[in-house]
């Protein structure tokens, strides 16, 4: 209510910035306590994640995955569903993609393999979200609970399957590597300045997905129905929206989006399916959706921020002996805390200052 009176530049720019600074301040304190220099650490972080072109490309590579998982969580959230299962959906989607690649990578060209891989991933991701969606729609089983369960189930199932895909004589619990044709074209072939980077066209796909998401959710009649369902089920029913169908469809889309995240991770980087390749990207998607307020621009910025942390924090731990890689996790948590949960921390203060000036 307070914010209503604040100008947009304050709520949209100054406050998030202050929140981010607060998170960094706490981080700096921790770094100081660990006996390292906060300013140097920040310099390393920024340099590694943004200034250095190769680092920036890694930032954007991680961001591409996060955009997809962030979108997956966001779209479900618009319908009032809290999909905690992006992690499992992306994991299972990796299987769909991999099965497609293992089948076709020796016979088809890249132009066909990429769409097929995306389709496989989206399909399997959607499939993994279908059951929770269906149970929510038809049986009223809480989607939060079922998606958590489905994360665990995906873990167990994928473990069983991946072990079966290991080529004989290999140690790594992973499928065989795909043929070169099944690799997403990397951006460094057009922009050599990016250096050796896994950044690939998935990044553009992610941007396209953001735009489509933005248009569909806020400009289309389906998006209108989606949001109405999320905000008021009774009114949605009154408006003739088929709520159970909506829930199932939105969960399918959500799962498919989470699934597309695996295209970047697998076809864009490792080129094989390995155990636990998702590595928390699904959970980060929750943070991104919440911090980004389910808005395409917000999702993009949060995804890039988290990508930068993943990249920069890694270099930081490399250069600073006392800062373990786990420090990044703490910083992520702090940023979500300040920028996502306490977004209004400085609202009253700013309001007061503006009033005083007048």
């Amino acid at each position, binding site marked *: 209510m307070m914010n209503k009176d604040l100008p947009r530049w304050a709520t949209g720019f100054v406050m998030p910035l202050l929140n981010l600074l607060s998170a960094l301040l706490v981080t700096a304190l921790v770094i100081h306590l660990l006996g390292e220099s906060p300013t140097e650490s920040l310099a390393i972080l920024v340099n590694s994640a943004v200034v250095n072109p190769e680092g920036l490309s890694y930032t954007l590579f991680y961001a591409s995955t996060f955009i997809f998982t962030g979108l997956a969580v966001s779209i479900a959230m618009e319908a009032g569903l809290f999909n905690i299962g992006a992690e499992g959906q992306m994991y299972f989607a990796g299987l769909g993609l991999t099965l497609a690649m293992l089948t076709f990578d020796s016979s088809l060209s890249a132009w066909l393999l990429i769409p097929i891989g995306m389709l496989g991933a989206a399909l399997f991701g959607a499939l993994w979200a279908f059951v929770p969606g269906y149970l929510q729609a038809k049986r009223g089983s809480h989607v939060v609970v079922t998606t958590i369960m489905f994360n665990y189930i995906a873990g167990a199932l994928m*473990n069983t399957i991946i072990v079966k895909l290991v080529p004989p004589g290999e140690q790594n619990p992973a499928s065989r590597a795909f043929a070169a044709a099944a690799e997403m074209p990397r951006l460094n072939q057009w922009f050599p300045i990016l250096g050796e980077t896994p950044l690939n066209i998935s990044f553009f796909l992610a941007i396209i997905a953001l735009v489509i998401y933005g248009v569909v959710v806020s400009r289309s009649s389906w998006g209108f129905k989606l949001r109405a369902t999320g905000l008021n089920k009774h009114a949605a029913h009154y408006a003739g929206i088929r709520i159970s169908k909506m829930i199932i469809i939105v969960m399918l889309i959500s799962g498919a989006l989470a699934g597309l995240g695996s295209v970047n991770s697998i076809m864009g980087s490792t080129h094989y399916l390995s155990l636990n390749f998702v590595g928390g990207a699904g959970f980060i998607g929750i943070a991104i959706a919440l911090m980004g307020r389910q808005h395409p621009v917000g999702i993009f910025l949060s995804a890039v921020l988290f990508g930068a942390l993943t990249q920069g924090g890694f270099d930081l731990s490399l250069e600073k002996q006392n800062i373990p890689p786990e420090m990044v996790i703490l910083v*992520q948590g702090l940023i979500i805390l300040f920028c996502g949960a306490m977004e209004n921390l400085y609202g009253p203060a700013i309001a007061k200052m503006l009033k005083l000036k007048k």
Partner: protein
Amino acid sequence: MTFDDLHIGSILVSTVRNAPVLIFAGMAGLFAERSGVIDIGLEGKILASAFVSAAVGFATQNPWYGVMAGIVASMLLASLQAYIAITQKGNQLVAGIAINIAMSGLTFVVAQYFFQQGGRTPDLGSARLFDVVLPGSAAVEHIPFLGWFYAHLIGGHSVLVYLAFALVPLVHWVVYHSRFGLRLRACGENPHAADAAGVNVERQRYMAMLIAGFLCSFSGAYLSIVQSGFFLRDMSAGAGYLALTAMVFGNWRPLYTFLGCLMFGFFGAVQIQIEGVELPVIGRLPGAMIQMVPYVLTVIVLAGLMAKSVAPKALGSPFVKSR
């Protein structure tokens, strides 16, 4: 597979030992959510108290100091959550998730800094909480069934196990038969009504969150100073989420939540027992497949038996005075 292969006795004892982590956290979540505050941050609180309990327990070589320090840590986190959810009227889900993530990082960083063992605390050794042996256990040990029942199912656990089980009727009483509980439920259902009736909604929610923090700390202490004897990074391993699931499963009611926790403990124990055992029809299941048994069963039970869960109506929405 014969009946004996199932080792019912072992499963039951294992259930009793598995459940307390979930019971403490489940009851904690119940207080928070019954007051209207979503507590997805159980995981982070468990982890924080597990670490602090172990670290202080080790440093002082007294498990009870560890437990107390764990309580302080968990309650501090709960107050932060409360401050965000109640005073700041921020997003409760975000707050909880942020705390989970931050604690996963912080416990590692701090443990590493102090102990230099890769985010682990040293072994507590004798500073652990050990199992209580009921008087006369040795004497009755040899009586069939009754001996086992007395010495191993009822007896032979840590004090915290008894605390966990004793907690359930206590929570039930507080929620349904005390003034505090009446106000708690009212705040979670319709804070405006509570407010109009002269209940201080914010204070009530703060208290609920502090209780949640208090109870949740035992979950962490149980993990580190009872079950393991040290702290290890991310050792909560999803217990907070599982407890939350048990609570939703239990429809935000203490007794059913307790049953949910037992159910998870039980399925977990069954899963241990059937690993590697030749099952009728299916044959021998691969280890990883068996891991999913508890989760699949939960989904089935949720879809079949307890489809409709009714959350407290005001859950998740900050209380803003006005109509």
